[in-house]
């Protein structure tokens, strides 16, 4: 088991968190540290029906072919099976993008069919750039865009938490991009909320500058972050980078999730963010799912990342 020691620096955490080779990785959010093994449950969550319990999966890349993972479909199926093994049924599962590798209708259909088997109160998605390689996300929205605004963004309120799902991957530039229409929508979306409403933001590409040289950032995210600063608890969860990474900016915390497909290098390690082929038997330790639990009145969510069982 890997645990985050108090006072650990971000660099230490990064080294600790990448290639997390144990059954469980614990991350800290707010003032809480939660540790448990898969199949257990976040302490208190089961006993507290008011707690919001969600799961994040990301970057399944259905359709990828390459030595870094010769069976991405099998890995994604395993991840979804792991979700179904959790003792607490999640209120919803969020897939934070790159559902497919090449945006083909068959790949979207496969992801759609697979996610129907998830035991959860709901299944939500945001698109990654691999879900929009040739059509600005049209095929993605045909399958997953029902009920969304604009290019596929939306919000919802669950158990006192305001959830915002943003689209920053439909871009021709290197960095993620939200666009003025979406930023204006966020402004209206947040306008009526009191400052003590916990805010949970999902996007595919990080909203913080994790490593802009590789496109791991969003060029106009500051405009949205400015709208979020008045809230006492803001948690931003993203995919795209295929590894765990935490960052804090004032009262806003950012948590990059790992993938169910294949690892990417640490920021700046090598010529580019290309699929990494691990030694035999090591791949599953780099893949995982994430549990996020909000308890009413808590300081923020508890976040636990699990490698695939």
């Amino acid at each position, binding site marked *: 088991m890997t645990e985050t020691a108090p006072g650990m620096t971000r660099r230490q955490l990064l080294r600790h968190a990448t290639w997390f080779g144990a059954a469980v990785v614990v991350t800290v959010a707010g003032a809480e540290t939660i540790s448990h093994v898969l199949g257990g449950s976040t302490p208190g969550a089961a006993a507290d*029906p008011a707690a919001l319990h969600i799961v994040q999966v990301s970057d399944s890349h259905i359709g*990828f*072919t*390459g*030595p870094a993972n010769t069976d991405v479909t099998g890995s994604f199926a395993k991840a979804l099976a792991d979700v179904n093994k959790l003792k607490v*049924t999640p*209120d*919803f599962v969020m897939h934070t993008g790159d559902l497919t*590798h*090449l945006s083909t209708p068959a790949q979207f259909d496969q992801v759609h069919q697979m*996610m*129907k088997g*998830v*035991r*959860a*109160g*709901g*299944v*939500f998605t945001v698109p990654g*750039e*691999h879900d929009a*390689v*040739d059509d*600005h*996300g049209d095929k993605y929205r045909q399958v997953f865009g*029902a*009920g969304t*605004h*604009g*290019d596929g*963004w*939306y*919000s*919802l*309120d*669950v*158990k006192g938490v305001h959830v915002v799902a943003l689209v920053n991957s*439909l*871009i*021709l*530039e*290197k960095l993620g991009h939200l*666009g*003025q*229409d*979406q930023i*204006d*929508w966020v402004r*209206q*979306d947040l306008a009526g909320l009191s400052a003590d409403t916990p805010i949970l933001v999902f996007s595919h590409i990080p909203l913080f500058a994790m490593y802009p040289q*590789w*496109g791991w950032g969003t060029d106009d995210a500051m405009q949205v972050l400015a709208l979020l600063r008045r809230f006492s608890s803001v948690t931003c969860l993203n995919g795209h980078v295929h590894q765990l990474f935490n960052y804090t900016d004032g009262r806003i915390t950012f948590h990059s999730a790992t993938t169910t497909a294949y690892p990417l290098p640490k920021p700046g390690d090598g*010529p*580019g*963010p*290309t*699929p990494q082929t691990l030694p035999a038997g090591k791949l599953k330790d780099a893949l995982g799912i994430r549990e996020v639990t909000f308890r009413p009145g808590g300081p923020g969510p508890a976040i636990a990342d699990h490698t695939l069982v």
Partner: protein
Amino acid sequence: MDMNKKFTRAGAVIGGVALCGLLLSACSGGGAAQAADTAPASTTASVPADLGMPAAASSSGSSVLIDKYMFGPDKLTVPVGTTVTWTNNDADQHTVLAKDDTFRSGSLAKGQSFSFKFDRAGSYDYRCSIHPFMVATVVVTQ
């Protein structure tokens, strides 16, 4: 509502967990998708060195190899009228997409190629739309 439909499709029943309060925000707004940036190809910023050493300065030929998630050469200089051919040598798929949309390939599997004839001088930045960190340039000279 569509979100509720998603819940139904997920087939989940959670005892004691009411999701009735899970609603789309009532906010309006969120306009139609903006068209992609369609700025014309940049013909500015010709580097003086290029003027003194045309074509051969950064590359020769009219082929670009896509290998190990890189375009090689990442700066190809050709005279106007040249047909440039990109060939993918990776197991993973790639595309060739001009920043100004002058040219765009479909997905190229290993061994597949894409060609485009450059009829106008200029500097054409392009990327792989599947892997946007893969960026390169074709410079077309008169």
